[in-house]
């Protein structure tokens, strides 16, 4: 771990930082426009969890498939989605990546290996097994990756998918974003053994647990797991420990946790974390960081403008995408 920091790669760390800044700005804007009533529906923000997305997706190649959760903005951004079209989607516009059909909870773009965020807790694991199955069958050197939360590990589909991937030797990366809450429910209320990594035991699956607020560490862990999965044609289970600073969704009044807990975690902000590491390693200056922040803000501003200017989809076209040709 410390070696990872010592040998900090400038290109990588810069990429991770850029992506995290983009995530943060993106979600802050979504939150803002949501509060103005300009965004419809609900949305699940991952503020505070950016390192899990940036580190994890940063270690993937374009041909790798990624399946995200309801809290999937960050993962999509870090897997390389066009953020103009993603913002347009969240605004419900016809230029959205999903033509306005999906919204915040269903961001997908097959062209960059984003096979969809999911409104249902759990299925991402099974879907990733299938994508990995196809890769394996075609001898493609890539993986399928499934994000899911700590809460999701209590669903039956978690167990079935872990078992299937292990017994069939599917190159899947199972990434558990452990923010210790499923909505308001703390992990200790819903499992006796909160050591999530134990959940890989019955499947004899390789596993690892990392500080999910350390983007580089996440990156290195996932990169290694990716190689392992491809070389051995085997799944890997990774627990990334992090914290959700934002509320669960719009219905969250934060009644289940203390302000202190939130501020404690704010101190461990993954963006500040990486910035500090980069500064210490002399990989960038405070000025450069301000510069990167400004760029991220500009990019997102442009995306918002694009989204706002885009037209709404037309009801007359609604039947076009119900069935494929």
């Amino acid at each position: 771990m410390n070696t990872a920091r010592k040998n900090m790669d400038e290109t990588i760390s810069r990429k991770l930082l850029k992506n995290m800044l983009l995530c943060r700005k993106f979600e802050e804007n979504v939150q803002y426009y949501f509060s103005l009533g300009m965004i419809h529906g609900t949305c699940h923000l991952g503020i505070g969890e950016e390192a899990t997305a940036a580190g994890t997706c940063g270690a993937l190649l374009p041909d790798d498939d990624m399946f995200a959760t309801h809290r999937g903005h960050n993962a999509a951004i870090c897997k390389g989605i066009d953020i103009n079209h993603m913002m347009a989607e969240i605004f419900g516009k016809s230029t959205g990546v999903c033509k306005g059909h999906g919204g915040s909870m269903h961001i997908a773009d097959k062209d960059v290996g984003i096979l969809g965020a999911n409104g249902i807790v759990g299925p991402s694991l099974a879907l990733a097994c299938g994508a990995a199955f196809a890769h394996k069958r075609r001898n493609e050197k890539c993986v399928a990756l499934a994000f899911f939360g700590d809460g999701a590990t209590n669903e039956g589909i978690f167990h079935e998918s872990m078992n299937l991937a292990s017994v069939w030797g599917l190159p899947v990366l199972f990434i558990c974003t452990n923010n210790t809450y499923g909505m308001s429910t703390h992990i200790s209320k819903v499992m006796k053994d909160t050591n999530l990594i134990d959940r890989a035991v019955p499947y004899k699956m390789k596993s690892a647990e990392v500080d999910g607020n350390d983007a580089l560490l996440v990156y290195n862990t996932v990169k290694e797991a990716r190689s392992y999965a491809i070389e051995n044609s085997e799944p890997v289970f990774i627990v990334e420990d992090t914290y959700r600073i934002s509320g669960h969704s719009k219905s969250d009044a934060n009644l289940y946790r203390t302000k202190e807990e939130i501020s404690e975690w704010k101190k461990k902000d993954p963006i500040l974390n990486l910035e500090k590491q980069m500064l210490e390693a002399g990989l960038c200056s405070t000025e450069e960081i301000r510069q990167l922040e400004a760029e991220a803000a500009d990019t997102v501003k442009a995306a918002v403008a694009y989204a706002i200017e885009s037209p709404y989809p037309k009801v007359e076209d609604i039947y076009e995408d119900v069935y494929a040709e």
Partner: protein
Amino acid sequence: MSTQNEMTYAQAIKEAMCEEMRRDENVFLMGEDIGVYRGAFGVTQDMYKEFGTERVIDTPISEAAFVGCGIGAAVEGMRPIVEIMFSDFMSVCWDMILNQAPKMHFMFGGKVSVPLVIRTASGCGTGAAAQHSQSLEAMLCHIPGLKVVVPSTPFDAKGLLKSAIRDNNPVVFLEQKLLYRTKGMVPDREYLIPLGKADTKRIGTDCTIVTYGRMTQLSLKAAETLSNEGISCEIIDLRTLLPLDRMAVLESVKKTKHLLIVHEAVKTGGLGGEIAAEVAESDAFYYLDAPIKRLAAEDVPVPFSAVLEKGVLPDEEKIASAVREVVG
């Protein structure tokens, strides 16, 4: 003299649960984030304070296990109320709803009964897209052994839920998301509304509208508009969808000679078919002066974008024009 209180649909549901929990210690509540979080729609606010976390129980995200647990507890004589956060998530515990709860009484020769209520939030209009907006009642109504209830007002919600809790069969109680914040008068005194009885929410002479849930409210508004045009609508709110109050429908149709069915679920395979068939099979058929009409959501997954979502759903205006078409 009994007094009335104004309260929301959500409050009425909560009151029904609280009253029954006070009355019968076998009643308890299980579901995701129903304690301190208050449930995704705030329905169970503060209930854990009165009844404790032993009777208002936050569950792991394991719908199949906790619905199954509800069934097992019911079989052992308790009266669980299980909340499934969104009705779309019935999909992950469908075996419990299709193959376990409703079949035990019959398969086991009548010796076992399953007094279980499954409460769940149904319907669209909240911009939550295809996996959080469905109206799945028609699937439930195809399961003998189950009862299915959809209230359209706070008054009905309270009276029906109390009956559902006392019923000795599994009842799926579909709450209408967009009605949670709507208000209505609810009596102070205790009352029950029997399952299986429709309610005529408006008396009229020219066209029967058979509907339920939120669409009842929209139909009532449309009926006002239409009455200014001289068209008098009778509105039958089914309230219980299974078992269906066939007679209420047939009698109204015989009187008005015209039938519009309105629901929020997609049209194909929806409950509208069942209702139309009941009429087309009965002697009410001979009274019909025009074809029956169904007004329902377009046959597409619920789209996210507000314009699309609104576009695929029935609304007041579409109901009014559908009536005009039927009587025209």
